[in-house]
C-alpha cells in the first residue's frame, strides 16, 4: 500500500505503508541508534512526533515483552528504510508491523531515509504528515503550515492519577512528564519505594508523601509548556529534599532557577552522544533524546552550575545546584535504549538521599 510522507516545505517521500493506516502528523525527527527501536517507539518523549530511524534495517529482532518504555506509545509515526517481516530472536513475540497496527501508529518504509535525515539536518526539524498515497499533497502542506506545534504533550502522556510501586527502600516521588519505564526500573532495582505522580502535582501534595527524593522525569516537547512544574521545584528545594532531573526534568530544573532554554536545530537523538564531566574530565557515552537545550549563558547569576557538556556541540548536558542536594542531566542514565555508562548517576542520587537522611537525623538529634 502506497503511503507518503509530506513535509511542510512541500517535499514528498513516497514509500510503502505498514502498521496503522491512520493519517497522523507531527514534527519529523531522526534517531541514529542502531538498536533499540522498540524502546524508541514507546518512549513517551516522542509524543506527537514522527520518528525516522537512520539505521536501514528495523525490526530484525522483532518485538518483545520487556522492551516497552510505556504501555501506550505516543509517537505519531515511524519511518524506516526497511521493516523486517521475518524477525528472529528468542524473545520475539511479533513484528513491527503487528505492533504498530495494535498501537495505532502509522509506519512508512521503502523511502530514502538518509535523504530525509540530511534534509532535517540542513533545514532543522520539519513538520510532516503520513498520508495515503492518493492524498492531496497541497492540502496537506497547507494544513501543516497552518497548524501550530502542539503544547499539550506532557499532559497527554503524564499519568492522570498517582500510583505507588511499593518497595522497601528510599521513598522517591517521580514527577511523570512522560517517564520512561527505564527510570522506574532503575529506581526499583535500587529498592526505591516509588510514587509516580502527575505533572501538575504541587509541592505540598508531594511533601505529604514524605519523600526521600524527587525525580523529575523525561518528557516530550518544550519545557516552557510545563510552567506548573517550576514553583513546585523551588519549594521542594527549599525543603532540602534531594532532587534529580532527567531530560525534560533537567530543563525544568534550569527554568525553575531562572535559566533559559531554546530549541535546537534538529536535536540530539541517538545512542552515541559523548558527554564530558567538567569536574573530572571523563567522557561518558550517553543516550539522548531532546529537541530543546538549556542555554549555557543563561546559567550566569543563577544558583546552578554547569557540570556536563556535550563533546560534539558544547551544549549543556548536566547541572548541579551550588548549595542544595540537586542535580540534573540532559541525557538518559536509564539508557533503554543505549549505553548504560551513565547509570552510576542513579547511585549518586541514592547517595544524596542517604546523606540527606543522615543530616536530617542529626538535625533531629541536635534539636
Amino acid at each position, binding site marked *: 500500500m502506497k503511503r507518503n510522507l509530506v513535509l511542510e516545505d512541500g517535499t514528498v517521500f513516497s514509500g510503502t505503508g505498514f502498521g496503522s493506516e491512520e493519517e497522523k502528523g507531527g514534527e519529523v525527527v531522526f534517531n541514529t541508534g542502531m*538498536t533499540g527501536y522498540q524502546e524508541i517507539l514507546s518512549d513517551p518523549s516522542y509524543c506527537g512526533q514522527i520518528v525516522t530511524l*537512520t539505521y*536501514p534495517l528495523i525490526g530484525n529482532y522483532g518485538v518483545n515483552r520487556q*522492551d516497552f518504555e510505556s504501555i501506550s506509545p505516543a509517537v505519531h509515526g515511524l519511518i524506516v528504510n526497511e521493516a523486517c517481516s521475518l524477525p*528472529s530472536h528468542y524473545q520475539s513475540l511479533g513484528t513491527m508491523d503487528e505492533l504498530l497496527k495494535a498501537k495505532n501508529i502509522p509506519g512508512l518504509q521503502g523511502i530514502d531515509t538518509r535523504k530525509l535525515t540530511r534534509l532535517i539536518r540542513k533545514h532543522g526539524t520539519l513538520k510532516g504528515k503520513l498520508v495515503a498515497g492518493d492524498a492531496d499533497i497541497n492540502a496537506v502542506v497547507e494544513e501543516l503550515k497552518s497548524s501550530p506545534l502542539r503544547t499539550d504533550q506532557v499532559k497527554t502522556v503524564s499519568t492522570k492519577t498517582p500510583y505507588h510501586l511499593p518497595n522497601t527502600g528510599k521513598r522517591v516521588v517521580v514527577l511523570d512528564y512522560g517517564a520512561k519505564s527505564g527510570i522506574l526500573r532503575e529506581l526499583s532495582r535500587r529498592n526505591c519505594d516509588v510514587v509516580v505522580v502527575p505533572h501538575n502535582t504541587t509541592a505540598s501534595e508531594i511533601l505529604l508523601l514524605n519523600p526521600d527524593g524527587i525525580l523529575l522525569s523525561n518528557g516530550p516537547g518544550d519545557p516552557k509548556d510545563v510552567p506548573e512544574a517550576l514553583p513546585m521545584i523551588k519549594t521542594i528545594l527549599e525543603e532540602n529534599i534531594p532532587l534529580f532531573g532527567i531530560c525534560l526534568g533537567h530543563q525544568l530544573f534550569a527554568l525553575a532557577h531562572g535559566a533559559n532554554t531554546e530549541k535546537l536545530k534538529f536535536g540530539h537523538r541517538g545512542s552515541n552522544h559523548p558527554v564530558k564531566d567538567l569536574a573530572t574530565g*571523563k*567522557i561518558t557515552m550517553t543516550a539522548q533524546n531532546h529537541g530543546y537545550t538549556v542555554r549555557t549563558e543563561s546559567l550566569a547569576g543563577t544558583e546552578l552550575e554547569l557540570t556536563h557538556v556535550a*563533546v560534539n556541540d558544547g551544549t549543556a548536558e548536566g547541572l548541579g545546584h551550588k548549595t542544595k542536594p540537586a542535580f540534573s542531566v540532559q541525557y538518559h542514565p536509564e539508557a533503554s535504549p543505549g549505553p548504560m555508562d551513565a547509570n552510576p548517576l542513579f547511585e549518586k542520587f541514592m547517595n544524596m538521599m542517604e546523606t540527606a537522611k543522615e543530616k536530617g537525623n542529626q538535625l533531629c538529634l541536635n534539636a
Partner: protein
Amino acid sequence: MPKRLDIKKILVIGSGPIVIGQAAEFDYAGTQACQALKEEGYEVILVNSNPATIMTDTTMADKVFIEPLTVPFVSRIIRQERPDGLLATLGGQTGLNLAVELSESGILEECGVELLGTTLASIQQAEDRELFRGLMNELNEPVPESEIIRSLEEAKAFTAEIGYPVIIRPAFTLGGTGGGIASNEEELDEIVASGLHASPVHQVLLEKSIAGFKEIEYEVMRDSNDTSIVVCNMENIDPVGIHTGDSIVVAPSQTLSDRDYQLLRNASLKIIRALKIEGGCNVQLALDPDSSDYYIIEVNPRVSRSSALASKATGYPIAKIAAKIAVGYTLDEIKNPVTGSTYASFEPALDYIVTKIPRWPFDKFEGANRKLGTQMKATGEVMAIGRNLEESLLKAVRSLETKCYHLELEQPKQSREELIPALTDADDERIYHVAQAIRIGMTVQEIWELTKIDLFFLEKIKGIIDLEQNMRNNVGDLELLKAAKEKGFSDVWLAKAWNMTEKEIYTLRTNEGIRPVYKMVDTCAAEFESETPYYYGTYADENESNLTERESVLVLGSGPIRIGQGIEFDYATVHTVWAIKEAGYEAIIINNNPETVSTDFSTSDKLYFEPLTVEDVMHVIDQEKPKGVIVQFGGQTAINLAEALHDRGVAILGTSLDSMDRAEDRDRFEQAMQSLNIPQPEGATAFSVKEAQVIAERIGYPVLVRPSYVLGGRAMEIVYKEKELLQYMENAVRVNPEHPVLIDRYLEGKEVEVDAISDGKDVFIPGIMEHIERAGVHSGDSIAVYPPQRLTPEQKEKIIDRTISMAKGLGIIGLLNIQFVLHKDEVYVLEVNPRSSRTVPFLSKITGIPMANLATKVILGTPLSDMGYSTGYAPEKEEVFVKVPVFSFAKLRRVDTYLSPEMKSTGEVMGRDTTLQKALYKGLVASGMKIPTYGTVLFTVADKDKPEALRLMKRFYEIGYTIMATEGTANYLKEQQIPVTVVHKIGSKERNLLDVIRQGEAQFVVNTLTKGKVPARDGFRIRRESSENGVVCLTSLDTAEALLGVLESLTFTARQMPAFEKDRALV
C-alpha cells in the same frame, strides 16, 4: 592530556611478511600510525621486513629499516637510533611478540626505550591464557570451561571430565595456527600435537566447545583518561566454531536487541578498562541464541584484522587514533577526521550494512582441506556496503572474483544428500550451499538445524531465492528488475535469467533510470555534515557524490589479497593515485579490499568502495566521467576488466588494449617476438586434448603446460610424459573452459626478471633481478637477487636490449615486467606482463626509483626524458638485496609444499647487506627460517637429482652437519666416503623418516619431487610433516645451495694441519 613532549623519537614495528592471519591490514595500520606520529612532529623510525608495503616507503617515516623482525636485528637498530619510545601494537601479533621478546631481552631497559600505548603487563594479561582467565574470573565475566595443558595426557584428562567437542587454541600464535575442534580422541591427538608445537611457549588451551552460539566482535578503544568507546560491533553470519577470519561477517550486528548489544558492550568495556588498554582492542564474544548467556572468547590487545575492517566499515580510523592515544592524547582531544567537526570520543552510527567475505586460496590448492574451523585459512577478504542485507551480501559475493556473480556456484550440488553434509561441515562455499538448499526446496528451519546460521540471515537468503524465481517467471518486468537491483542482483545473473547479454540488461535498465546513487560513509548516519570522499553505491533517491571541476582519472584496485596477487599491487595502486594527484588531476579509486591503504579514504580524492565488475565500474564511470581509466596497477583484476570497459567506450590510459592483448595473446605474442627477433621457448596453443598431445610430441618433453590468461601461474605444471599431460588436460580444461591451454618447451636454466618503464620512445630499466631457483619455480616463489650476481656482461646486455625492443615493439606505455630464461647461452623470453608486477615495490625501494609514480606520469603524458630518465639500465647499487618468499603452509592442511610453476607463497621479505650471503642470511631469517650453524640435514631426493645433491651433501658434511638419508641414498654416500646416518623409509615399523621430522631431529629437510600430486605419496608426507612440525623443507636444490652458501659463510673451517711432506722427500 595533550601529546607528550618528553619523547621525540619513536620506533614503530611493522608486521613483517603477509601470511595467512596477518595480511595487508597491518600495512594500513602501520601507515596510518606513521602518518599520525609524523603529523604530531615526532621523528619516526620504522622497521619492517616486508618490502611490498606502503609503510616501508621512505616517505612514510623519517627513517625506514627493512630488516628481519628478530631481537638481534631490531636491537641493533635500537642501539643505533636510540628511540625514546616503541610502538608495537600496530604490527599485529608479530609486532607484539617482538616487543615482548625485546623487553625480555633487556634491550629496552638498556637503551631507555619506553613501550608506548598499552603496557607489556596488559598485553601479557590479554595474551597469556591463564592470566586472562584469572582476570575474567575476577571481573566475573564468563569464559568457557577450559584448561591450559602442556601435554596430550593433560588434554585427555580434561576431555574425560567435560567431554567432546573441545576447541584447541595454541597460545601466542596468529590466525589460530595449530588449532582446531576435536570431536573424538583421534582428532584430539592430532590437533593437540600440532598445537603444542605451534605455540612458542608450548601451551595450548582446551576449551569447551560453544559451537552454534552467535559470534560477536566489539572493536573498542580506550585512552589514558579511561574514556572507552565502541567503534563498531560485528556479527558473524557463521556461528562460533569457524575462525572469525574465515567467517562471513556483517556490521553492525543484525540480530542483537539493544539489551543484547548493551550487555556485550558493557562486558567489552569492562574488560578493556580492567586491562588498561591504551589504544585499540578487539573483544570476541559468544552469545547464546536462546538466552542472554554469553562467553568471552578472546581479547586482542592491539589493532587487528577486525579493526581494519571496522575502520573501513565505519570510517573511523582506529590505527591513527590508537597512535595518537599512544603519545598521550585523549579521545576527546582528537578531532574525528571524517566529520572534521566532531571528536573521536564518540561511537560511530552506521546507516548501511557492511558484509565481509573471506577470500580463500582453494582455487589454487585443489588438494587442500577446505573445511573451515578454528584455524584461519583465508588469505584476504572483500567488503561491500549496501542499504539492505541482500545488496551488501551480493555485492560482496561478486567482489570475490571467484566467477560467482550471485549466490550460485557454477556447478551447484543438486540433491539433499549432497547438500546436507556440505551444510553441516562448513567449507568456503557454504553460503552458496545454503542458497542452493533453499532452491531445491529445503526449509530454512532444516538449514538452521544443520548450520545454526541465524534464521534472520537464512530468511534473507530465502528472499533472494524467491526473487530469483519471480524474475525468471516475469521476464521483462521492469518493476521487478528495479526490485532485483535494489536487492543487489548483478547484471550478469539477470542477463542469464532473462536470456539477454549483460550489456543489454545494463542498457535496458539505465534507459529506465534504474541506476545506483552514491552515499557517503560518514561515521554519523548523516547527523553531522561531513566531507569525506568515501562512497558506496546503492539504489536510492539521493546522490551525494558531487562532481568537481577538476578532470579526473580513475584507478582500478586489485581486490582481495590472494596468492599471486598480493599487497604489491596495492602498493602500486596507492602510488599511482598519489602520482595522479601530483599531476593535478582528481584521483578516483574503486576497490573492495578493506585491509588496504588504497581503501583508506585519505589516500585518494574519491574512494568508491565497490565490487570490481564491469557493471559496478561502469556505474562509477557514468557518475564521474573520468578522462580515462588506469588498469595496469591493479594486477590481473584490473587488466581483466580492460576489454569490457574499452568496448563500452571507456578510454584505457597507458598501454592500449591492443598492446596488452599482443603481450597476453599467445599467437600474437609469438608473432611479435618473431618480428623482433627475440627467441622464446618453442610452444603452441592447444584447443583440444588431441592437439595438446601432437604439440607436446613435436616440441619434445618436458613441456610446460598452463591455461592462457592466468594469475600467479595458476594450474601451471611441468610434465615429463604423455600420461602426465593427459592427466593434466583433464583438470586444466575443467578449471578454465573458455580459454585454451598453452604448451611450451621447458628450458632448464637461470631465470631473470626485469621491470621497465616505457613511454613509447624511451625505455628505462630500473633493475634486473636474478632468481636463485632455476626456471620452473614460479617467479613469485623464487628468491630474487638484485643486482644479478652470476650474469656475464654480455648476458646483461642482451637482456637490456631485448627488454627495450620488446617494450617498444609491443607498444607499452607505462610498466612492463619480463621474465627471461638463460638456457645454453641464449636469452629466451618466457613472458611479458604489460602491467605493474610483484617486484615493483621491491625494486622501487632498493633503487630509490619511484617506478609506479614515473609510470603513472608517463601514462598521463609526461615523457621519461622530462623527468630526467632516458633509455637504458639504471646504474646498479653496490649492496646486495634479496627478496625471499614466505609461505603459509602450516595453515593449509594437505597442500603440497614443493616449489613449482604454480605460485604458493603468500608474502615476501627482503634481506639487504654487503654480500650475497649476508643478504640471504637476513632474508632467510626474516622469512622465519632458523639457521643453526650445526645440526642435521635429511636428504630424500629423486634419482635424477642425486649427482647434484651429492655435491651439496658433501659441503654440508664439511661444515659439520650430520647427513641423514634413507638406505639408497646412504649407500651412495658411503661409496663417496661421506658418513651418513641411515633412517628407515616411511611405512617401516622402525623409527622412520617421519619420526625424525616429528621429533625435530633434523633442522633441514631437502626433498625433491619424484612426481605426482597424489597426497598418498611419500614425498608429500615428508613435506607436509615438515611443514606441520615447523621443520624447514627445501624442495629445490638451488634453494638448498643458497642456504648452504650462507651456512658456509657463517662457519669457520676445522681442518687438520698438513702433514710434513716427508714421503715426497724420500722419493
